[in-house]
């Protein structure tokens, strides 16, 4: 049978554009099909990208990619409704090439990534949602259907994101369980570059901060607030487990509103103009909710395969997607050369991922989701405990001074020493 293309990649995000780029570089005919009017126009990140895997695909990406700021400040906070305790870490190591990370906006970033695939020879089709997959009599995937059109290929690579409507047809994966999915909400605030630099205490307009906020940001529910500084904007938002939010007194958008009005956040976005309000899901379940990665004529990469890990102090997805997109592109192209794009022929993709940090990390941190989900105290009691201890230390009113131990003990007792030890032990094991 004659196919229209060697490969079809669905979705021009981090995984898809890189997969298409690798295929085109290997002289395969490839169609990159994306439902957004432009690459990135349906995508959203917090967000920050760790550079290591991008650098393997584009060694000079720093010079050409539309990056926002290099992240040189990591800020972590425990927030109570009336207090906020923060750690701000910065180090020279954060500026080391290949070990650094950058804030990005997916609109411009994804357009650049897709342009790399197009320049390498991939055919790009934007504004077209794939509605279903084309199968032959044996059930093997041989193409995609969009409107009246059927387009066929030896292999179809699904990189259509966490809300993929195609994984069920491809590998029998209907949708992830709600208990393992978080909802993200974000607002983008425009501010002059210099104002952002000053407010975050960055060394220059090229550098910036990432900020994770546990506690009152989600009104005690599993999740957290986040902030990333871009060149001329600030991304501020919340990610929270959807089952927790579904039971909360506060809708996700009210959490967002209260976060930006919290006294420790409000000065950061003061007088800023909101230019966008966005939402996106985050797969929290890691390898426990990962679908089968290959089938006959089909592969999954990026968030359509739930490739994301919440480490608590950092969330990673885009670096996994880029590495997986690269592995998918290389494995697909080898399978096309070997004239075997059956599930067995595509299995090399899984081997490549098993050998790389992608599946190694996913396996190593398989217990993290269950731990984070049950870590209720981190989102409620601990921020309040820390507040009480800090108030004891820093509020001076002339009453007799206490030793540090005496200041800490009442607050610790309130939570329970055994509970704290249990959580420390759990965290050590899972994270």
């Amino acid at each position, binding site marked *: 049978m004659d196919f229209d293309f060697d490969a079809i990649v669905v979705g021009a995000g981090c995984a898809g554009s890189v997969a298409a780029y690798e295929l085109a570089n290997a002289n395969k005919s490839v169609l990159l099909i994306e439902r957004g009017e432009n690459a990135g126009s349906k995508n959203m990140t917090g967000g920050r990208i760790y550079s290591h895997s991008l650098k393997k695909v584009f060694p000079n990406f720093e010079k050409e990619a539309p990056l926002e700021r290099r992240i040189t400040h990591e800020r972590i906070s425990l927030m109570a409704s009336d207090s906020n305790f923060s750690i701000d870490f910065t180090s020279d190591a954060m500026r080391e090439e290949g070990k650094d990370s950058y804030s990005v906006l997916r609109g411009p970033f994804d357009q650049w990534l897709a342009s790399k695939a197009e320049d390498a020879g991939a055919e790009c089709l934007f504004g077209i949602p794939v509605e279903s997959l084309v199968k032959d009599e044996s059930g093997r995937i041989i193409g995609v259907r969009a409107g009246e059109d059927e387009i066929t290929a030896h292999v179809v690579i699904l990189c259509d994101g966490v809300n993929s409507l195609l994984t069920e047809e491809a590998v029998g994966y209907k949708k992830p369980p709600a208990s393992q999915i978080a909802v993200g909400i974000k607002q983008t605030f425009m501010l002059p570059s210099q104002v952002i630099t000053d407010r975050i205490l960055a060394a220059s307009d090229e550098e910036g901060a990432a900020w994770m906020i546990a506690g009152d940001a989600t009104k005690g529910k599993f999740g957290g607030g986040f902030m990333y500084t871009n060149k001329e904007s600030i991304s501020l938002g919340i990610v929270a487990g959807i089952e927790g939010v579904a039971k909360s007194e506060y*809708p996700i958008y009210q959490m967002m509103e209260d976060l930006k009005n919290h006294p420790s956040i409000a000065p950061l976005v003061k007088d800023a103009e909101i230019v966008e309000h966005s939402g996106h899901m985050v797969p929290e379940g890691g390898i426990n909710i990962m679908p089968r990665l290959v089938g006959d004529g089909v592969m999954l990469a990026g968030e359509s395969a739930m490739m994301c890990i919440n480490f608590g102090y950092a969330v990673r997805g885009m670096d996994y997607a880029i590495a997986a997109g690269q592995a998918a592109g290389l494995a697909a192209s080898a399978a096309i050369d070997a004239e075997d794009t059956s599930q067995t022929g595509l299995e090399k993709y899984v081997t490549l991922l098993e050998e790389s940090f992608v599946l190694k990390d996913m396996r190593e941190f398989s217990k993290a989701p269950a731990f984070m989900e049950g870590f209720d105290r981190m989102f409620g009691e601990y921020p309040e405990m820390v507040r009480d201890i800090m108030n004891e230390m820093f509020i001076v009113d002339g009453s007799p001074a206490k030793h540090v131990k005496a200041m800490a003990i009442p607050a610790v007792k309130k939570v329970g020493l055994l509970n704290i030890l249990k959580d420390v032990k759990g965290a050590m094991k899972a994270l």
Partner: protein
Amino acid sequence: MSEINISVNVDSYLAKNKYEVDEGNPHIVLVEDPDDAEFDKLIRVCPAALYKRRDNNTKFFDYSGCLECGTCRILCGDTIIKKWENPGPNMGVEFRFG
């Protein structure tokens, strides 16, 4: 309905976004007379606040400000969401920043 605290008007934020609304062709459809408890979950989780209760407590849903995140599909795809599809060609939200 259990207590839900809402003081923010999300519609004014959605007005900042760029949309191409497919008028008369909703990509999300609810079942007829959706269950109260399920609907109230969606009031809380939808980041665009598309699921609302009006003054007289009647349920109201409008797909036109949808951010296409899919949260309602994951949470209630087996209960009160009858249809969840991607908007048609060049339709729906277009994030300029993302």
